[in-house]
């Protein structure tokens, strides 16, 4: 039996000795110590477990961190493995084929800052990762876990970007992939998966339906590593690298405030975890920072709960052009509320038209073409400024998590040629363009 489905809680059959378990090699998960329940603290050993056997709470990677210095990190590769001491990966991770995501650019956005009336603003541009979204980070960590656990198949349910990243990483690692997406996804996202994998499965339903199906398959199929299901604790750690990089690229300090898109909420909570770890390790100075979450109004269960002042997140049926954020039942939504409230931030949502406007705004001020998720994030930043919720005198970072070429349809009606003219000077002169 594959180690992948060995659940720490499955009892051996009485009388028959359990077969010797071929566990992962020593150091397979680096400095990680155990998986700990975020709700009740119950711990299980490192492996393909993701839900607490006591309370169903999410299991998270817990570490025994060694002393880590800025110099050691700076001497590392220009990708996420520079932070490998803080991730659940072996020390020789660079020897294993993966897509080497990370260390994306942090651009000071002076034009956008001026436009919005913010003193200092940066865009962390994760659209330049290997498959053009931040998902390459989480997938690289999940791939490491899958390899150490001897997975036969690498898989995911996805709103699109994750499927792209899993399919590409699996191709490079030589491990078969099966990726599941809602059938109504943007064509570029479908093609960007199908080009890397023979097995792109479109499911009639929304992401929450696809997620349910994947959980059921993960419970039945041996040897499958679903990156965001049974190896989710490892996967989710990859998002911390976004937080580490922002701090390192700011000269080893934390921004005053940061705006992050929210679908399941995993990424936002992991950026906060990263900041907390950097403080604890003495790599940055302890200081207050505010975390803001961004959703599209057509799928805003976390923003709605934030505004209502409750902890109860009512799931919704998504209806928005921001399909990568269209998770109606966000499992980490409650933690997004915790982080945003604890840090003095907020969760806000904007309409699809505001998402489109923000895509164009970012493109025309900074030359960055973001997908609908980034449009949502920049649009929420704008709304937070206009409503006075965001202090414009504080240093602000906004994360662009994905590339605009993946969601061309969202704005192809909004932009295009200003005129179509004959190839003559007279036609140009008559066009009134100048």
């Amino acid at each position, binding site marked *: 039996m594959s180690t992948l489905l060995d659940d720490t809680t499955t009892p051996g059959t009485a009388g028959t000795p359990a077969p010797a378990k071929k566990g992962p090699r020593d150091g397979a998960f680096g400095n990680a110590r155990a998986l700990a329940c975020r709700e009740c603290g119950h711990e299980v050993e490192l492996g393909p477990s993701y839900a607490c056997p006591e309370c169903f709470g999410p299991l998270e990677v817990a570490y025994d961190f060694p002393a880590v210095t800025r110099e050691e990190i700076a001497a590392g590769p220009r990708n996420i493995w520079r932070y490998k001491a803080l991730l659940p990966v072996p020390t020789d991770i660079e020897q294993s084929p993966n897509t080497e995501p990370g260390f994306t650019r942090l651009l000071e956005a002076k034009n956008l800052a001026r436009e919005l009336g913010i003193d200092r603003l940066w865009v962390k541009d994760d659209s330049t990762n290997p498959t053009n979204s931040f998902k390459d980070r989480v997938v690289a960590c999940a791939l490491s876990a899958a390899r150490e656990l001897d997975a036969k198949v690498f898989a995911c349910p996805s709103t699109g970007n994750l499927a792209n990243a899993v399919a590409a990483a699996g191709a490079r690692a030589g491990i078969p992939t099966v990726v599941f997406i809602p059938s109504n996804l943007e064509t570029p996202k479908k093609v960007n998966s199908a080009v890397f994998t023979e097995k792109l499965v479109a499911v009639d339903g929304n992401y929450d339906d696809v997620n349910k199906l994947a959980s059921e398959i993960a419970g039945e199929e041996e040897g499958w590593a679903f990156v965001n299901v049974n190896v989710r604790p490892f996967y989710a750690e990859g998002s911390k690298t976004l937080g580490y990089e922002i701090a390192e690229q700011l000269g080893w300090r934390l921004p005053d405030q940061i705006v992050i898109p929210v679908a399941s909420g995993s990424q936002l909570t992991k950026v906060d975890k990263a900041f907390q770890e950097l403080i604890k390790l003495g790599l940055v100075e302890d200081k207050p920072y505010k975390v803001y979450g961004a959703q599209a109004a057509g799928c805003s269960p976390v923003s709605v709960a934030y505004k209502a002042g409750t902890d109860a997140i009512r799931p919704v049926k998504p209806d928005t052009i921001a399909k990568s954020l269209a998770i109606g*039942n966000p499992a980490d939504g409650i933690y997004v509320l915790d982080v945003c409230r604890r840090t003095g931030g907020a969760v806000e949502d904007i309409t699809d038209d505001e998402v489109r406007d923000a895509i164009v705004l970012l493109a025309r001020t900074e030359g960055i073409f973001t997908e609908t998720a980034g449009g949502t994030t920049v649009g929420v930043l704008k709304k937070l400024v206009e409503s006075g919720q965001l202090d414009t005198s504080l240093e602000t970072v906004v994360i662009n998590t994905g590339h605009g070429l993946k969601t061309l349809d969202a704005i192809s009606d909004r932009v295009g040629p200003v005129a179509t003219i004959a190839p003559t000077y007279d036609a140009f002169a008559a066009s009134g363009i100048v």
Partner: protein
Amino acid sequence: MSVSVRIPTILRTYTGGESEVSAEGDTLAAVLDDLDASYAGIRARILDDAGALRRFVNVYVGNDDVRFLEDLATPTPDGVQISVIPAVAGG
């Protein structure tokens, strides 16, 4: 009403490793009671001390999340499949 219930890996200790079991009841609450009669202790894993569905578990009757239906009062017609699934983040 006889229904089938899909059991997540972490609860299969209660069902002797079975991934799918049958139970009786015409609402989800009744089905969980009946399940607990056969597999003592399983209900307390799915419901919290106040008797509500735990935050990180999703229960489906057919294809629908009961949080969109009537929660524990959701009717469970004869032969329907019920799935108990841990909530997972990341997509």
